[in-house]
């Protein structure tokens, strides 16, 4: 049995190591000693964990750091630093390391062309969000209220995620193009062809298709948490189905709705693949402009500046929308 007992010693030593350079605290040594006499390998692992637990329990700050540290570290490395780098670059002229300037921002904000693209992007994002929210809510509602096979249906909702985004977009090209699946079917039943590809409608269809699962899941979650008794109570008190929906179901699930809306609105605003593939060249969205600056025009600072402006705009819009949503559906809006 020499090995387990050695691992015990190692455990005790490790738990000290993992702390700080501070002196070994009495209790830790004690438990380490006990374990060494115990000898068993299982109690060795247990002892190591319990030693560490005890050690951390007595140091609440260190414990907080141990729990919160890794996620915050990830956020710093993968979110804060890149964002900061973008911010820095956006104030440089022509290329990374160029002279400091505000020109990237003034150029963008004074250009009618770019602002028109932003406005278009905003309109499309709002439309997509509205369509996805309406369809997604109806879908989630029907899954929760009228179905017993909720797991299967949810699986079907998520199923498209198993295929690559790009491949699914090409599938839609196939369906929507002028002699594609949709037009062929329409021809068969004697209706005129639509040739939807490379139109705004195609972009809306593509986005709706892609984001629907993202919205359905939070909608579903908030709807399953909704207490069915509240619906019955509302009906019992004389409210018909529509009024019950508006005054109980919707306000009670507003958090899920906001989550879904945010999940759809943000990626739509910055998206460039869907509009590029389905919208063609006449339907430019701001994400495509940014992508272009980085990949074709090689004007990274200008792309970064647009990115910063868009981020600020989106965050502002979301704050506004959340505030508005809370006001409309929260307790404040009911009494009128």
């Amino acid at each position: 049995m020499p090995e387990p007992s050695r691992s015990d010693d190692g455990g005790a030593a490790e738990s000290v190591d993992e702390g700080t350079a501070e002196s070994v605290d009495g209790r830790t040594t004690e438990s380490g000693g006990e374990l060494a006499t115990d000898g068993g390998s299982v109690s060795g692992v247990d002892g190591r964990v319990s030693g560490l637990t005890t050690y951390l329990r007595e140091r609440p700050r260190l414990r907080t750091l141990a729990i919160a540290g890794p996620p915050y570290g990830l956020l710093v490395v993968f979110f804060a630093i890149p964002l900061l780098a973008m911010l820095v670059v956006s104030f440089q002229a022509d290329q990374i390391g160029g002279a400091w300037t505000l020109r990237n921002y003034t150029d963008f904000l004074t250009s009618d062309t770019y602002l028109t693209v932003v406005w278009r992007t905003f309109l499309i994002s709002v439309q997509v969000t509205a369509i996805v929210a309406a369809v997604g809510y109806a879908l989630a509602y029907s899954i929760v209220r009228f179905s017993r096979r909720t797991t299967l249906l949810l699986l079907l909702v998520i199923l498209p995620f198993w295929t690559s985004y790009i491949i699914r977009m090409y599938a839609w090209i196939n369906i929507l193009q002028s002699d594609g699946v949709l037009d062929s079917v329409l021809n068969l039943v004697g209706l005129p062809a639509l040739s939807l590809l490379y139109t705004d409608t195609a972009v809306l269809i593509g986005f709706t298709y892609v984001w629907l699962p993202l919205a359905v899941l939070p909608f579903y979650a908030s709807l399953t948490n909704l207490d069915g008794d509240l619906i019955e109570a509302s009906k019992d008190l004389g409210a018909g189905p529509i009024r019950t929906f508006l005054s109980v179901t919707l306000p009670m699930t507003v958090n899920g709705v906001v989550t879904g809306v945010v999940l759809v609105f943000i990626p739509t605003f910055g998206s460039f693949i869907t509009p590029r593939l389905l919208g063609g060249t006449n339907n430019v969205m701001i994400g495509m402009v940014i992508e272009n600056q980085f990949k074709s025009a090689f004007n990274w600072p200008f792309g970064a500046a647009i990115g910063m402006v868009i981020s600020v705009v989106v965050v502002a819009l979301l704050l506004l929308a959340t505030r508005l949503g809370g006001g409309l559906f929260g307790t404040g809006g009911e009494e009128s």
Partner: protein
Amino acid sequence: MSLLRVRGLTKEFGDLVAVDDVGFDIEDGEFVSILGPSGSGKSTVLRMVAGFEEPTDGEIALDDVEIVGSPPFERDVNMVFQDLALFPHLTVAENIGYGLKQSGVPADERRERTERMLEMVRLEGYGDRSPAELSGGEQQRVALARALVNEPALVLFDEPLSSLDRKLRQHMQSELQRIQIETDTTFLYVTHDQEVALAVSDRLVVLDDGEIQQVGTVEELYEAPASRFVADFIGDVNAVEGRVTAVDDAEIVVDTGDDEVAVPRTAAGNAAADVAVDDAVDVCVRPFQVRVESAGSAGASDSDDASNPADADGAFATTGVVRSRSYQGSDSLYGIETDRWGRLSAEVRSASFDVDDRVTVAWDAADVHVYRRDGSESPDTDGGT
């Protein structure tokens, strides 16, 4: 004309018959409870009256108007839910005013009536709070006010008090009675708790296995239970096995071991007992009607009982040993292992015994109820007359 008339009400869930041919009436201004163990179908009956379930068969008429098929929001009935179902996103006042708002009552009147209701349930000044800030008892009052403010013909209760502790529950019971009288509203209360049902109701509907066991006033059910189930469910009961040896219009003679005892048929009990000679029966007696005396004074007890005509055919009496005692305030409940009938319980007020004391146990034949044991129907009924 009764306010609520239920006839032949049946509800099947697949193969399960949850409610089987249930019929009862509720008069205007009554407080009626549907009492039954869990799974007896009582909540289903309530939900059918409220409109949340469609009956498989049967009629429900409110104020002589058939309401089966009409949606809950069109019925002049309001419900207090088991978990209250207060709207968490609305204030107390908005919760109470919800029904009025739906029926288009103007804001001024709504405020006034809500205020009056808050007073009625003694929650003045709580209107602006959120339901989550209130205690369990206060939430009960809000739920009650929310149902009553609409002045429905009938208020339904789905065991709303079951989540409260005993003290608060008793307090809410008396509040319910006060409010019912003050508002002159008809209450239909569903519960599995016989204590609550006995305390608050004018009449009880006892339900088991989807079928009505008995309908009657609290006194009728307690004093003349129609079956052993009812006797057992409403108050405790001792059951002694026996066999019928003779039956006529005046009495039922039962053999419970060595002796035959003649049980008189009286208005209070056994008048309608459907038994025949040779039937296996349960002879039931309430613990408080059981007399217990120390075995040493058995002789005195016998002479007391000499005035009892039942003694002529032998009394219900045996000896036994006290096995357990639980103090209940004004009296004590004893568990006694008897020599003839096994374990019995007796509620004794005056005397006091210790565990292992030898005692005599006796009760009057006039106090017992005789029920035919389930599944023991005797084919030869000619001995009955």
